[in-house]
């Protein structure tokens, strides 16, 4: 599991890339990517291209990110999900809270 993050050139968006199993072991690293920022960006993108698996604690982490980014006003996208990851997000109906592409 590796978490990398990148701020967009204009500073308005942050992309968090998750690699490998996205589970409780990623908790601290995932939080650090947005808690360490000096200001809260307008939008977040969680890139799942390299993520192989997602469990319920990862769903919890996504909710924490959404909360940090402003709750109902938050703009959080989850992109490049493989079918397994997508299925977990769909069962939990997270498309009601996140833009999933």
């Amino acid at each position, binding site marked *: 599991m590796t978490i990398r993050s990148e701020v967009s050139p204009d500073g308005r968006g942050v992309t968090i890339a998750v690699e490998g199993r996205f589970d409780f072991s990623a908790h601290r690293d995932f939080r650090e990517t947005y808690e360490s920022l000096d200001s809260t960006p307008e939008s977040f993108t969680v890139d799942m291209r390299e993520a192989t698996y997602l469990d319920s604690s990862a769903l919890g982490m996504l909710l924490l990110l959404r909360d940090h980014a402003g709750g109902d006003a938050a703009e959080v996208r989850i992109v490049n999900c493989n079918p397994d990851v997508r299925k977990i997000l769909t069962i939990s*109906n997270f498309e009601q809270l996140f833009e999933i592409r």
Partner: protein
Amino acid sequence: MAEPIRVLVADDNRIDRTLLSRIVAREGHTVITAVDGNEAIERFTAERPQIVLLDALMPGLDGFEVARRIREAAGDAFIPIVFLTSLTEADELARCLLVGDDFLSKPYNSVILRAKITALERMRQLHATMQEQRDEIAQNNARLLREQQAAKDIFDSVAHSGCLNASNIRHLISPLAVFNGDVVLAARNPAGSMYVLLGDFTGHGLTASIGAMPLAEIFYGMTQKGFHLADVLRECNRKLKEILPVGYFCCATMIDFNFQKSTVEVWAGGLPDAYLTPADGGPSTPIVSRHLPLGVVSTQRFDPSTEVFELKHGDRVMLCTDGLLELRNSAGEMFGSGRLIDILGRSGAGGFEAVKEAAYAHMGERLREDDLTLVEVTMLHEHEIDAPMPTYVASGQIGPRDWSLTFQLGPNSLKEFNPLPLLQHVLMEVPALRVRGGVIFTVLSELYTNALDHGVIGLSSVVKSTANGFTDYYRRRLDALNALADGYVRFEFVSRASDAGGYLKIRVLDSGPGFDTSIVAAARAQTANVYHGRGLNLLFQLCDSLTFHGAGNDVEACFRWGDGDVPN
């Protein structure tokens, strides 16, 4: 100078013994001496020195055997043993280190001896501290396990409770996990329906068990008072959102089994597909999660909308948590939904047992990684259900004796509010009515449904007799309610009671146009098919009397008790 300790000096040579004793004593330590192996063991047992200096070669018991016995006597405690030796062979010295902790070669050097005692005492203290901490950890762990066991007992009595032992419910809750985060609740409501909830909390620890408490309380409290599924879910969601930290939630499926109508009404948020399996074989229908789990969004955003499915006698509903689907076999392969569908599709295979066996076979000897929770509920006729109906506990034994109540609901209330629990609560204050609580609730809900669905909204119950009738009916009903702009349903209650007996009259009026009341006589004559849907048959059987006034949008049901000789 080092902290003074007791040092045993065992040497058969008097000169060496005296010399060593003097060096040790000069450091402030207490010296205990022994002249041979046997005495060394005796004095060790009697005086418990902290360090032993032991001549390797003594007459009788040799040093190595003495060392072995001292270790035995010392038990858990670490007693450093230093061999005193004139040996110079590497092999012999190595043996000293194998049995003892160090050696000191003759002739003795006082500086080296002092340094060795200090070093070994440091080691001994380190060891003692480690042991103390180990014991403390073991104690704490034992206490924690005891507390967890007690907490699990409480959790089990709360989280896996209600009428789970009813003969139409079969369930499996993995016994290995202390807190697996899975909750199974079941109870009947006053109208005879059975509510079943399967929940899976994120996190397997105390979070789950803490969340389960209010969930169970709300479920049982509201179910027995006759609240609708949506009301119970809305309240559960509100409470969990309030108490759980962000990122923690409860995936859940809740089902209302209506045995009178042979329908199930389902709300599913976050659990894997549940399945409807027909009694006569044939493919299972998945019940798909349409909602966010409980505890994620606020009440304003929470969507309690449900789906209705029609079942036949003997049809089964299978619910599971992701634990089943994620079970891995020795090759690391997951159980998966494909296997589950296959097993459910096998004819005559008694779904639950077959799924359970397949799950165990899949796991083999492997430890269960996650929660394995399965629930299967079978649709039966109401008279076959052996789970008890809720009992009413009212505030007083005396209760009101002469009272009336009028309660009218306008369009905005009719859209969302369910008045039945409130009205039932009032009626149950009358002691004589409590024993008939279930019947009264059924009559109240039939009358209200008739007034609202057929009266105010004007839906025809004929819709229900088509293939997808119920589903279609509930969809139309929802659309009509959302569009409702005017209309009313009015309840008028009048009750009188004395020590000898009493009565309750329930009059329900609606703003609808009424209906052709000539069919009432036919319904009463039990030619049930003449008029489908108003449950008239049932009403006639349950009430002591039932009268339609005017155009039929005004109906009066009466319950009497005692000798009935009560003033009007």
